[in-house]
């Protein structure tokens, strides 16, 4: 987008012609994003969460796995800001360390699903015909079969660690990315710049990754952001069912698992309220940012 050239009268009386300032797509997107007030607030809150996750080992008051049998299930106090759990571990420390797991899984799983989805979608959309048919049927199957079933099965079979969780979530959530990228490729591959590239004899691989893909990414931004939120929820869910991040490492999901015990649910609410609150807050922030990004990249929308 180009802004109109401005001519201004300077103090010397000489008319200066300012150069036409052109704004890149990225700059425009950022500018439009900052008009979305909720998204900006969400970005600020999420930044705080990210920073505390990174600095978890610094701002923790006790090691997250320090068992203190003298203060078991202690309510929040000056010593333990958010109280302690049944073996006296500090909830504050566990919550901020849990943020690490959530963010790592959220971002890591999304990277994996974006990678697979982009590859499948690009190849499918670019080559079309039977390649497209085959890949899209596979995509349909992965998309329609309830992923929770496959996740539970895989989670029970694979070794229980953060890496497995990453692979499981990422490996099952790529279909929506693939569909979007495919649709983009379908519309781009007939355009002049692609035809020109082909006429010049540029290899397919280069056309796909250098010529088309950078154009196809903009609509993907929002989808990727939303999928970070979904991945965070999925990890928390699996850990809640006891199939995710294994204790003693804290994750919001396995902290919430404690609330399955009616006695803890009733009498030790500080054990499950912090992870519940943080899960909702983080995912809300991510979704608001995604919403802001979607509006920002949508050229039809006037902001």
């Amino acid at each position, binding site marked *: 987008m180009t802004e109109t050239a401005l001519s201004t009268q300077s103090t010397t009386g000489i008319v200066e012609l300012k150069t036409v300032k052109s704004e890149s797509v990225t700059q425009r997107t950022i500018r439009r994003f900052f008009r979305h007030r909720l998204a900006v607030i969400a970005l600020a809150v999420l930044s705080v969460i990210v920073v505390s996750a990174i600095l978890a080992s610094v701002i923790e008051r006790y090691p997250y796995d320090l068992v203190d049998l003298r203060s078991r299930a202690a309510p929040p106090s000056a010593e333990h800001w958010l109280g302690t759990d049944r073996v006296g571990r500090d909830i504050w420390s566990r919550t901020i360390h849990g943020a690490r797991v959530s963010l790592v899984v959220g971002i890591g799983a999304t990277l994996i699903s974006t990678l697979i989805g982009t590859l499948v979608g690009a190849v499918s959309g670019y080559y079309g015909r039977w390649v497209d048919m085959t890949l899209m049927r596979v995509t349909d199957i992965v998309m329609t079969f*309830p992923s929770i079933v496959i996740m539970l099965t895989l989670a029970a079979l694979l070794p229980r660690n953060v890496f497995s969780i990453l692979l499981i979530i990422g490996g099952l959530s790529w279909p929506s990315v693939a569909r979007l990228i495919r649709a983009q490729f379908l519309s781009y591959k007939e355009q002049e710049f692609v035809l020109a590239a082909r006429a010049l004899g540029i290899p397919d691989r280069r056309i796909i990754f250098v010529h088309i893909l950078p154009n196809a990414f903009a609509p993907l931004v929002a989808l990727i952001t939303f999928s970070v939120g979904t991945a965070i929820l999925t990890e928390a869910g699996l850990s*809640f*069912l006891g199939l995710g991040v294994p204790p003693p490492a804290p994750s919001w999901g396995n902290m919430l698992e404690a609330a399955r015990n009616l006695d803890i649910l009733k009498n030790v609410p500080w054990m499950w309220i912090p992870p*519940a609150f943080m899960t*909702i807050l983080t995912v809300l922030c991510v979704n608001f940012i995604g919403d802001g990004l979607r509006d920002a990249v949508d050229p039809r929308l006037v902001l």
Partner: protein
Amino acid sequence: MLKYLLRRLLLTVPVLIAITFIVFGLTELAPGDVADYFISPELQMSPEALAALRARFGLDQPVLVRYVNWVGNILQGDLGYRFTDGQPVGDVIARRLSASLTLIGVAMLIGVVVGVPLGVFIGLRQYSFWDFSLTGFSFLGISMPAFVTGIIALFIFSIQLRWFPSGGIRPVDRVPTLLDSLHHLMLPSLVLSLNYIATYMRYTRFSILEVIHSDYVRTARAKGLGERWVTWRHTVPNAILPVVTVVGLSIPNLVVGAVFTETIFSWPGMGTLYLEAVSGRDIPLLMGMNLVIALVVLLGNILTDLTYAVVDPRIRYD
């Protein structure tokens, strides 16, 4: 239409065969079999005894023979017996399936009945107060997973206010009346419905907004049709169409779409059964459940297409 239906049903046959292959193959790939499950390593059972056990369960046969046997048994309605307690898999699944269908069916129904009209309502009033507050609610509904809403609802309504029982499908101390069953069903189905309400509402709103700005609605207005006529004859029917697909796409959820809600409210449904099967490595049960789930997915797809054919006169099947 009938021809289309027949072709559609015929097409499911190869898919069904493929499904049995996948279900059987996956179980084949999983490490461990019944012998590993029953025998703890400390027992130090002799290899002969292990072999005898494997023979008893037919595990010494070649893969293909076992597959054919398995499919043959299924065709006769025999899904095998659970590893854990020897109950017939078919019976267990039937019992649990009805519990899940009730819970999730009611939740989805609430989702459609509440979500779609609300979506229409705010779609027609974009940027109004109602639009902002309900869109905000749907955002929350989508960001809150069932295991968080479930815990919070249980804490507030069962433990603090004591309005609802804290779990289970019926009272343990007496024969349940219809009222008892409804009382137990209420909280979990409401918790589960939040997500459906939010999803359907968002989708309907979006769909209404798309249609409202389309050419044919502008044409209808230009013709001088009344606002009410334009809304109810032109906008809403067209906007509902894609919503049918979204609702149809959630049909597979009817079976195992409530793992978290069922876990929190100790609901004896398919979700909790699947967890039991997975954690107990109960392979016959897993195979049976996967088969049922795949069937429901297939059925859901066919139903969605058929509903579409019925509600959208533009689609022709010849």
